[in-house]
């Protein structure tokens, strides 16, 4: 595959190395001459010096035959525009943008970027899992469906303890599919399953209904 990477910073550097190792044809576009030279010295002629948002540069590096276009500079707006130019001017089938502000994930998707990767979100999710009192943990994102798999803990003092699943007013977009209880095999929750304190519920939900799901399961507003 021919892959173009915009931004030769730490992310771009290691990404390119990994992609080259997998046998892909990779080209980095980087503005800074010094960075460009050090990448070229180490990896051979893989760096093009210039602005990855400029059509002329993208024409020169043959963006129209690229299979994938990955923008990993440190600025969200630059990554957005580079990907949009690649998509609309050069019809690159797959564009991937790195984002710093997690709130931009939804915006980028709306604006036609195929995939976004948020290092901030990834770090946050891992830390969340380590905080024992955190009521809702993100386990997995199903990107192309806009869904996520989350784990919700039922607190000991929750109003829902002793209630059945059927009695909960769950948001329509959420489905409970697994219940984990201490010293028991995993249970598939049904309408007549009764919730106990410290149960862990695994559910699939849209990001928008996540808060409503947490509230419904723990019986708080």
């Amino acid at each position: 595959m021919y892959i173009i990477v915009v931004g030769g910073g730490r992310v771009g550097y290691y990404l390119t190395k990994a992609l080259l190792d997998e046998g892909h044809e990779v080209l980095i576009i980087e503005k800074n001459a010094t960075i460009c030279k050090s990448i070229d010295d180490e990896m051979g002629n893989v760096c093009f010096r210039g602005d990855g948002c400029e059509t002329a540069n993208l024409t020169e590096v043959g963006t129209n035959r690229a299979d994938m276009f990955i923008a990993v500079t440190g600025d969200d707006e630059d990554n957005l525009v580079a990907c949009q130019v690649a998509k609309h001017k050069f019809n690159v089938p797959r564009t991937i943008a790195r984002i710093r502000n997690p709130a931009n994930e939804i915006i980028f998707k709306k604006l036609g970027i195929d995939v976004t990767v948020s290092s901030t979100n990834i770090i946050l999710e891992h830390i969340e899992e380590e905080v024992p009192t955190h009521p809702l943990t993100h386990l997995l994102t199903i990107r192309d469906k806009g869904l996520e798999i989350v784990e919700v803990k039922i607190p000991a003092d929750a109003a829902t303890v002793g209630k059945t699943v059927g009695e909960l007013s769950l948001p329509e977009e959420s489905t409970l599919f697994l219940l984990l209880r201490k010293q028991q095999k995993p249970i598939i929750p049904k309408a007549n399953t009764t919730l106990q304190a410290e149960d862990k519920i695994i559910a699939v939900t849209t990001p928008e209904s996540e808060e409503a799901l947490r509230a419904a399961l723990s019986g708080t507003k």
Partner: protein
Amino acid sequence: MKVVIMGCGRVGARLATLLAEDGHNVTILDNDDYSFRRLPPEFKGTALLGNGIDQGALKSAGIKEADVFVALTQGDNRNVMATQIAKYIFGVPRVVCRIYDPLRQEMYSTLGIEAISPTKIFAQILKEKLES
């Protein structure tokens, strides 16, 4: 009408001043409050510190009620991104964006963004002056 302007540089400050003089409801955003020195003391609009590519800042600038959004920072990409947020996320009826790079301006124009390239216009004016 209610106008939100992002970027209080020379053009932004002047546009804000002119529109406010005409009685429009103007809010101008900049991420450096030193830029607001360009606004005259009698400026009747609102000057707000904030980053125009941040949804929170746009909301506090009243983007939801805005009739017009204009992006005039120094960065083409920031302008393009803020404009698209205003248009596609907040549904502002009219958005105008400054893009210095003529090629990028052409591309976003074909994508339906009202984009103006001062580079192109000024070069054209100079050419006509010199050749006349």
